[in-house]
C-alpha cells in the first residue's frame, strides 16, 4: 500500500514536472502504431477477404455430385451463417430449332452471397448490378448463349421440359472465373423451377453446391463439423482452394501488412528500450537518495515497477484510442475502396496491442529497472558511484524472447519469422561493430577540423558507447524503414508487372485442332494479342506409386476431380522449376510429368513418384520429373499437370489460349462465336478487375501502414535525441561558462548530430540493401538495387537526425548556464 501510494505520488509529480513525457509519449505512439496497424490490417483483411470471396460468390462452398443433405444447410443456419443453394448441370437449351449446350445454373434466393450479378438488355453490353435472381418462370442466358441462340429479351428458351422467358441477359457473375472447367455458356434460372425441368434424374451429371457466408469463427467450426461427416465426393472449398490467383494476392497482402506491422512493433521496442534507459538514468540519484534514507531494494523495485505498470496501462489506453481514431481516419481516406458494409474492426488488436506493449516493457524496460535496485547509496556523496554494469544475458535474454515472440505472433510462419529474426539480429550486430569502428575513426579524424566540428566529433568519440547505441538505434529505425520502402517498391513493381495493362482478359477454350491456325488468324485480325496455344485433354489421376488415390489417407478433392492436362516444349516465363528439370530434347515422348507446387503440396508428392492417369479411357503411368511454381496471376494458360511433347499427342482434343482483346463492339464477339461455334469464350476481364481491385486496396493499405511506421520511426529518433538531452544541457552550460558562443555551440551540435546521422544512414542504407535483397528472395519478389534510394537514405537520416538533435538541444542553448551548474 505504501509502495502504491509512493508510486502514485511520484508518478503524478513526475508527470506534472514533465519528466515522464518522453517515455509516456513513446509508449503511446508505440501502442497507437501497433493497434492502428492492427485495426487497419483487421479491416483491410476483411475487405480483401470479402473481395476475394466474390470469386466464390461466397466465403466457402460445400460441393457434391449428389444432392446435399438438408442437414448441411440446417447446421449452417444454426451457426448463423448465410447460405444459398446452387445446382449446376450441363444440358441442351433450345430456342425453337436452334440448340446449344449450356451450363444450367439454378440458384436459390440470396445468390450470390458475395459479389454481384450484372445483367443487360443485350449480349456483351456493360450491364448493371442487380441484387435479384431470375423469378420463377424466367431465365437469364449469358452473352455467349444469347448470341449463339440469337435470343432477345422476351424470347422463350426451353430447358428440359420447361419453357422459360428470357427476362435479362447475364453479363457477369462473381464465380465465373473460379475455374475454367465450365466450357459451356451459362443460363441462370430459379431454383424453384428445377424440378419442373425434369432434368434431375439419377443418371444426370449434377453438381450441387451449398454457398456459405459469415463470420470466420462460425465457418471454421462448420468446416470441422462438415469434414468429420463428409461423404465421398463431398468437399469443402474456400477462397484459397478455389482461386489460386486471388489466394496469391490475398496471401501476399496479408504477409506484407504483417511485416509492415512488425516493423512498427520493433520500432516501438527501440523506443521503449531507449526511454527506459533514460528513465533509469534520471532516477539513479533519486533511488540512491531513497536508499540513503532507508528504502529497501524491494521497495525501490516495487515502486519503480508499479510506476511503470501504471504508466504502461495509461499509455496503452491512450494509444489504443489513438490507434482506433487513426484507423477511422485511414478508413476515411480509403473511402470508396473499402466496402462500407464491412463489420467494424474487432477489439482483438487493442488487447493484442496491450499484450505486446507489456511484453515489450518486460523485455526491454525490466532489465534496466533491475539496475535501479543496484544503485549504491554512496552515489549521494560520489556521483560516479554507478550500479554495476548490467549482465549481458539479463539485458539480452528478455529482449530476445520478446522480439522472437512478437515476430512469430505477427508473422505466424516459422520460415519467414526466422529469416526476419536472423536479418534483424545480423543488422544489430553489423550496426554495432561498424558503428563502433566508425565512431573510433571519427574521433581520430577530427585533428584537422575546425573548432565546432572538432568539438562535435570529440563528443561523438568521447561518449563512444552512447554514440554507438544511438547509431544502432537510429540506424535500426532507418534500416527498417528503408527495407520497407525497398519491399514496398518491389512488391508494387511485382504486382504491376504481373498484371500489365495488356494482361489477357479473354480465355478461349475448346479450340479444335484443325481450327487452331484459323482461330489465331481471326484473333490477330480482330486486334487481339493471343498468348501461347496449349493442347488440352481431360484426365483423372488414379494411382500414386501403384496405390489407388482414394485409398491414400487425407486425399484431397483436388485429386478426385477430372484434371486438365497439357504438354509443351516451352516452360514459359510465368513458370519456374523449383525441383527437378524441365524437358530436354531427349525427354520427348518419355513417360514423365511436371507438377505445379500446389498439386505437389496437396498430394505430398516427391520427385520420382509414379502417377497413374486415366486419359480418355487409356491408362498411362508417368514419373514425376519436376515441380513448378506457377504465377497464376499472369492470366496466361497454365496447368497443374504438364507432360513432355510426344506422349499424349494423339489424345489432343482441343487447344486453349488467352488473349488481350478489346472488341470494337459487342457484335464483334458475337461474330467470333458464330464463326467458331465450338470455341468457348470466357471474359476474364471481370475477374481481372476483381484482382486489380484487391491489389489496389492492398497497395493503399500498405502505403497507409507505411506512413504510420514512418511516424513511429520518427518518434523513436526524437526519443533517442531527447534521452541524451540532460547530459547535453550540462555540457553546453560548461562550454558557455568557458566562453563558447551560441553560434559555436549550435555548429558543434549540428556537426555532432549530422555526423551521427551520416554514420547511422550509411550503415542503415547499406544493411537495408542487403536485408531487402534477402527478404525479397524469401517473399519471391524481384529485387532491384537503387543508388537513389541509398543516397536518399543516407541524406535523409543525416537531415532528420541533425534537425531532431538541434531541436532537442535548443532548450539547452537558450538556458542560462548557472541554472544548470549551481
Amino acid at each position: 500500500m505504501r509502495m502504491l501510494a509512493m508510486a502514485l505520488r511520484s508518478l503524478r509529480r513526475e508527470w506534472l514536472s514533465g519528466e515522464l513525457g518522453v517515455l509516456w509519449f513513446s509508449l503511446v505512439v508505440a501502442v497507437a502504431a501497433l493497434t492502428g496497424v492492427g485495426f487497419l490490417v483487421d479491416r483491410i483483411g476483411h475487405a480483401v477477404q470479402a473481395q476475394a470471396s466474390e470469386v466464390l460468390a461466397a466465403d466457402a462452398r460445400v460441393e457434391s455430385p449428389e444432392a446435399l443433405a438438408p442437414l448441411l444447410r440446417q447446421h449452417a443456419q444454426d451457426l448463423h451463417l448465410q447460405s444459398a443453394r446452387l445446382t449446376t448441370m450441363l444440358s441442351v437449351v433450345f430456342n425453337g430449332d436452334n440448340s446449344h449446350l449450356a451450363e444450367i445454373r439454378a440458384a436459390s434466393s440470396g445468390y450470390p452471397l458475395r459479389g454481384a450479378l450484372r445483367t443487360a438488355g443485350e449480349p456483351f453490353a456493360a450491364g448493371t448490378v442487380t441484387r435479384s435472381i431470375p423469378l420463377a418462370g424466367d431465365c437469364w442466358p449469358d452473352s455467349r448463349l444469347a448470341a449463339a441462340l440469337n435470343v432477345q429479351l422476351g424470347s422463350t428458351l426451353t430447358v428440359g421440359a420447361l419453357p422459360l422467358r428470357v427476362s435479362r441477359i447475364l453479363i457477369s457473375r462473381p464465380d465465373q472465373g473460379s475455374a475454367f472447367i465450365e466450357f459451356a455458356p451459362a443460363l441462370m434460372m430459379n431454383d424453384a423451377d428445377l424440378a419442373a425441368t425434369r432434368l434431375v434424374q439419377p443418371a444426370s451429371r449434377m453438381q450441387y453446391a451449398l454457398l456459405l457466408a459469415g463470420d470466420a469463427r462460425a465457418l471454421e467450426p462448420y468446416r470441422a463439423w462438415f469434414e468429420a461427416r463428409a461423404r465421398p465426393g463431398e468437399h469443402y472449398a474456400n477462397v484459397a482452394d478455389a482461386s489460386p490467383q486471388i489466394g496469391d494476392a490475398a496471401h501476399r497482402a496479408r504477409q506484407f501488412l504483417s511485416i509492415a506491422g512488425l516493423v512498427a512493433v520493433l520500432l516501438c521496442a527501440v523506443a521503449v528500450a531507449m526511454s527506459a534507459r533514460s528513465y533509469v538514468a534520471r532516477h539513479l540519484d533519486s533511488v540512491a537518495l531513497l536508499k540513503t534514507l532507508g528504502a529497501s531494494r524491494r521497495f525501490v523495485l516495487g515502486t519503480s515497477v508499479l510506476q511503470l505498470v501504471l504508466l504502461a496501462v495509461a499509455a496503452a489506453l491512450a494509444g489504443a484510442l489513438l490507434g482506433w481514431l487513426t484507423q477511422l481516419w485511414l478508413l476515411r481516406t480509403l473511402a470508396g475502396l473499402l466496402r462500407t458494409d464491412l463489420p467494424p474492426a474487432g477489439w482483438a488488436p487493442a488487447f493484442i496491442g496491450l499484450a505486446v506493449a507489456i511484453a515489450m516493457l518486460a523485455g526491454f524496460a525490466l532489465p534496466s529497472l533491475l539496475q535501479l535496485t543496484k544503485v549504491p547509496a554512496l552515489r549521494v556523496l560520489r556521483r560516479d558511484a554507478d550500479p554495476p554494469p548490467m549482465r549481458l544475458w539479463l539485458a539480452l535474454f528478455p529482449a530476445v524472447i520478446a522480439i522472437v515472440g512478437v515476430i512469430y505472433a505477427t508473422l505466424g510462419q516459422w520460415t519467414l519469422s526466422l529469416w526476419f529474426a536472423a536479418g534483424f539480429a545480423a543488422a544489430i550486430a553489423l550496426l554495432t561493430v561498424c558503428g563502433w569502428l566508425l565512431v573510433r575513426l571519427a574521433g581520430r579524424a577530427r585533428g584537422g577540423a575546425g573548432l565546432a566540428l572538432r568539438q562535435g566529433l570529440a563528443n561523438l568519440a568521447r561518449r563512444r558507447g552512447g554514440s554507438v547505441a544511438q547509431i544502432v538505434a537510429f540506424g535500426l529505425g532507418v534500416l527498417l524503414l528503408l527495407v520497407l520502402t525497398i519491399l514496398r517498391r518491389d512488391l508494387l513493381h511485382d504486382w504491376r508487372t504481373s498484371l500489365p495493362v495488356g494482361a489477357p482478359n479473354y480465355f478461349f477454350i475448346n479450340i479444335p485442332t484443325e481450327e487452331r491456325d484459323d482461330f489465331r488468324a481471326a484473333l490477330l485480325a480482330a486486334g487481339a494479342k493471343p498468348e501461347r496455344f496449349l493442347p488440352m485433354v481431360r484426365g483423372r489421376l488414379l494411382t500414386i506409386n501403384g496405390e489407388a488415390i482414394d485409398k491414400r489417407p487425407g486425399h484431397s478433392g483436388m485429386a478426385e476431380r477430372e484434371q486438365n492436362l497439357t504438354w509443351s516444349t516451352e516452360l514459359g516465363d510465368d513458370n519456374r522449376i523449383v525441383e527437378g528439370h524441365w524437358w530436354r530434347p531427349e525427354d520427348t515422348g518419355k513417360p514423365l510429368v511436371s507438377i505445379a507446387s500446389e498439386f505437389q503440396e496437396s498430394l505430398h508428392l516427391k520427385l520420382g513418384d509414379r502417377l497413374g492417369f486415366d486419359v480418355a479411357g487409356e491408362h498411362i503411368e508417368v514419373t514425376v520429373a519436376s515441380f513448378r511454381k506457377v504465377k497464376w496471376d499472369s492470366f496466361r494458360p497454365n496447368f497443374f499437370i504438364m507432360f513432355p511433347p510426344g506422349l499424349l499427342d494423339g489424345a489432343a482434343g482441343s487447344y486453349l489460349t488467352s488473349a488481350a482483346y478489346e472488341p470494337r463492339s459487342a457484335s464483334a464477339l458475337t461474330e467470333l462465336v458464330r464463326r467458331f461455334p465450338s470455341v468457348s469464350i470466357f471474359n476474364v476481364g471481370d475477374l481481372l478487375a476483381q484482382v486489380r481491385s484487391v491489389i489496389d486496396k492492398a497497395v493503399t493499405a500498405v502505403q497507409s501502414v507505411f506512413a504510420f511506421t514512418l511516424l513511429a520511426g520518427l518518434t523513436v529518433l526524437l526519443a533517442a535525441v531527447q534521452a541524451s538531452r540532460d547530459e547535453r544541457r550540462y555540457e553546453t552550460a560548461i562550454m558557455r561558462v568557458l566562453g563558447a558562443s551560441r553560434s559555436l555551440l549550435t555548429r558543434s551540435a549540428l556537426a555532432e548530430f549530422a555526423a551521427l546521422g551520416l554514420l547511422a544512414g550509411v550503415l542503415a542504407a547499406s544493411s537495408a540493401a542487403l536485408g531487402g535483397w534477402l527478404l525479397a528472395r524469401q517473399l519471391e519478389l524481384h529485387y532491384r538495387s537503387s543508388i537513389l534510394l541509398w543516397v536518399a537514405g543516407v541524406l535523409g537520416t543525416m537531415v532528420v537526425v541533425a534537425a531532431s538533435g538541434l531541436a532537442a538541444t535548443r532548450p539547452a542553448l537558450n538556458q542560462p548556464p548557472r541554472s544548470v551548474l549551481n
Partner: protein
Amino acid sequence: MTRDVVLKAEQVMRQVSSPDGPLTIVRDVNMEIRARESVAIVGPSGAGKSTLLALLAGLDTLSAGRIWLAGEELSALDEDGRAALRAAHVGFVFQSFHLVPALTALENVMLPLELRGERNARDRARDMLARVGLAARAGHYPRQLSGGEQQRVAMARASVGEPAVLFADEPTGNLDSVTGERIIELFFELNAAAQTTLVLVTHDRELAGRCGRVLTMDGGALV
C-alpha cells in the same frame, strides 16, 4: 561498546583499485562518538573525509575493520539491513542538497517518515518546514527554491525523523557566506533541540569550531 557510544570505528580501512594497484583512501581509523556529541571531521581535499563519512553512515563498504552504528555492526548487515538502520537512526544533509526534484518541499520532508511507514508524516513534515521558516513554500518544487531554501528543506528532511545521528557533508559548501551562516545557525539550533549526535565533514574552520570535537584527517588517516 559502552552504552552512550552511538558510533564506533575500529581499524577502519577502505581501498579502491587503480591502474597503479590498490589505493588506500582511509586507513587505521579508530574513533568513538558518544550520544549528543558534535564532531567535525576536517582536512585538506582528498584527505578521505567524505569517504570516511560514507563508511560511518553505511553508504559504502569497508575493506577492513569494523563500524558500529546505534549498536549494530554495519559490516554484519547486508545492503537492505543497512538501509533499514539508516531509516531508523540516521539523517543526512548534503553539500548539493539532494532534494527529489519531482517532489515538493513538503513531500521531500515527508519522505523519511513515509519510508518508516509513519502515519502523521504530513503534519510532522509541515511542522518541521515551519521550524525552518519555509511554511509558505511547502508546495514549491526544488527548482523553484533558492540554494539556501533548498538546504533548509534538506535540513528539515534530515531532522524530521529525529535521528540518533545526523551526518552532514559540507552543508554550506554550495552556499554564499551570509546564507551559509544563517543555515549554520539553524542547523545547530535544530540539533540542540533534538539532542542529536552530529558528524560533520567540512572545510570551514569556523563551522568546525562550533562542534564539540574536531578530528583532522590527512592522507586517509586521523592525525
